[in-house]
């Protein structure tokens, strides 16, 4: 799907906003970057002229605007009461990142997006809030972030169980991963970067797969999957990788986070995170189930061709062979 020129423009301003906010030295600059980011994502969302995308755009705009307004408000408190300011900052950033308990907008916005915008929302749009959050870890906010971790883990895990829409499932999965990322933030920046980059790789590979198969619902996978075995392998490897099952790449960031959390004695949080990881795996598995049952009914209207050849090995590499050289990744970061 070639990008139109306006999309390219907005995409670059989107990136610019992100960069601006994470590299700015003042909260005002950060706010400006966030606003730029927000305003350039709106046209990207509503590139398809239907009511779903415009509804999603509206919702996104309202929520982000609310978050931004809180940020600009608390920036003004910074001088008088820095405690209050940091608290409000944290809450607003959590809202912007879509972490529980401020996650309510996230699934419903995801619902109206195309897969490539989903990828942007899941990855690029998280960069700015999360990195701002990582600057904010003063002692007085330390009780908000763990609470957000726990709620995100639980909400992400439990919320996705009953879902049948793939984008909602991805939304909840993203909320759950947010919990892991926030705990990584609590530990160290490097861990967070590591986890985040892995998450970006894996979740976008899943989304790309879904995009190629043009599926939006669990039952579509049964009908639309072209019957090539490497497609099936791709589907379930990337989904299980997203779930963090050992032989796949997704296990590495989890392993590292677990190790760091154990060394910093965060056992209670860790227990909740692990339990939630199990639940998320359950709904990934439900999606992957059709791929795992090797022989499935053929439908004549499955028109989608198989995924282009250069994608397959790269995605398999991304999802399987990561485990072979985990140290490589730590060196890079």
């Amino acid at each position, binding site marked *: 799907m070639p990008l139109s020129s306006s999309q390219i423009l907005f995409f670059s301003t989107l990136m610019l906003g992100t960069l601006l906010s994470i590299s700015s030295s003042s909260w005002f600059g950060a706010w400006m970057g966030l606003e730029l980011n927000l305003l350039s994502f709106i046209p990207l969302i509503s590139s398809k002229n239907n009511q779903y995308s415009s509804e999603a755009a509206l919702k996104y705009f309202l929520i982000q605007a609310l978050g931004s307004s809180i940020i600009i408000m608390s920036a003004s408190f910074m001088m008088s009461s820095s405690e209050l300011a940091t608290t409000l900052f944290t809450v607003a950033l959590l809202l912007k990142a879509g972490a529980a308990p401020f996650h309510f907008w996230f699934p419903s916005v995801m619902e109206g997006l195309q897969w490539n915008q989903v990828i942007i929302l899941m990855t690029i749009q998280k960069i700015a809030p999360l990195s701002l959050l990582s600057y904010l870890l003063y002692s007085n906010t330390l009780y908000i972030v763990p609470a957000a971790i726990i709620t995100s883990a639980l909400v992400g895990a439990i919320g996705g169980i009953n879902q049948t829409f793939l984008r909602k499932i991805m939304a909840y999965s993203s909320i759950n991963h947010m919990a892991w990322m926030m705990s990584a933030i609590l530990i160290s920046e490097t861990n967070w970067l590591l986890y985040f980059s892995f998450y970006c790789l894996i979740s976008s590979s899943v989304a790309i797969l879904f995009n190629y198969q043009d599926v939006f619902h669990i039952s579509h996978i049964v009908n639309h999957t072209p019957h090539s075995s490497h497609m099936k392998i791709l589907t379930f490897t990337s989904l*299980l990788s997203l779930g963090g*099952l*050992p*032989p796949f790449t997704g296990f590495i960031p989890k392993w590292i986070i677990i190790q760091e959390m154990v*060394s910093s004695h965060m056992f209670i949080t860790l227990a909740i995170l*692990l339990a939630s990881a*199990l639940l998320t795996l359950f709904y990934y598995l439900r999606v992957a189930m059709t791929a*795992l*049952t*090797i022989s499935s009914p053929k439908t004549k209207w499955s028109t989608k061709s198989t995924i282009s050849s250069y994608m397959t090995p790269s995605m398999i590499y991304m999802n399987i062979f990561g485990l072979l050289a985990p140290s490589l990744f730590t060196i890079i970061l």
Partner: protein
Amino acid sequence: MLKFMLACIMLMPLVNSWWAVQSSLFILTFILMLYCHHDFSNYMAGWCFNIDSLGYILILLSFWITALVVCSSQKVLKENNYPSLFLLVNIFLLFFLIMTFSANDYLLFYISFESSLIPTLILILGWGYQPERLQAGVYMLFYTLFASLPLLVSLISLYNMSGSLTLGLVENVSGAGFISCIWYVVTVFAFIVKLPMFLVHLWLPKAHVEAPVAGSMILAGVLLKLGGYGLIRVLPLFGEANKNLSWLWVSISLVGGVVVSLMCLRQVDMKALIAYSSVAHMGLVLSGLVVFGWWGVNGAVVVMIGHGLCSSGLFCLANMVYERIGSRSLLISKGLMNFMPSMALWWFLLSAGNMAAPPTLNLLGEISLIISVVSWSKVSMLSISLLSFFSAAYTLYMFSLSQHGKYYSALFSCCSGKVREYLILMLHWLPLNVLILKGSTVMFIL
């Protein structure tokens, strides 16, 4: 060990020709057998892998069972049911099993232990028969994962404590305080679920019933043994805590074994019966292991090998019946002796193995286990006697119901056994009964 892993990897390109993979697996088994002159300490070491006698015998078992699995799943080839993918999955499974049994490092062990789940899951979901296989697969995956994620935490804590996860270099967790006990429970629980112990065994009958013959064989033959292997590896680290808590596992597994045996008597599904009987046998293995006497541990290893061969053979037999009659129900597939008189001999021999009749490895192992558990407490004699009695009861129930008497009247046209099938059964039975002549070959350390 790397040479065998590389051999496995090199088998992967061959998956398009069934015979090549099959014969290569047998040849590899044979080559591995040649290494049986090992010197009983760490052996064939290199690059995080080494084997000792325990690992050796279990790797040999994995090779053997995988070769037999391929041999007995000819139906996949015949019906062109994705044969090359099937072989690929099996080779992957074998690869992960070799890694698990030869890993020199707890974390590597953990990773490959978990990895072996995926090919098994694919086997069950991909080549199973009924729609219920989805549930079975989910049960298997989640029961195992539920218990093994805490294991990861525990292993990493061990790493934090002693700075290494190499087998033998990890410090022991001393004391039997609250923390040590929790740590202990978290660590062993993964293996206890995998074994499985009564109360957390629900995944096993489901998985066995729904799995294709390959899945059942390898599940019963090798994968359950991962639990026992893991216990043998981690229990030495938790001496004190284990001593304090072993009563819990022994009592649950022995009483549970009796309960499971009673349930076996009510099964009408052949595979479910065999699966439940595995639970009962593994109960004894678990109690021998947590008692952690020399006899108990060695007996557990022997039973693991014996049970691996025997129940895998029984699943194979159940599948042969299923392929002919199309049902696993004992009410329909009955009176088979009239169709397949020679097969009835194999049924009898393998059933005898299942009830630990001499001269099978199972008997040797069970004797050692009973010795160990009875020396631990005489009260256990009560449930051990019931366990042992009922193991005969349900095995004979299965044998007589499936082989003896009139056959189902709606049944016509059923061919007798084929040479390939007799060969498979023979290859299950022979090691089961011959290895006892030098019982120490299958022991942990001599």
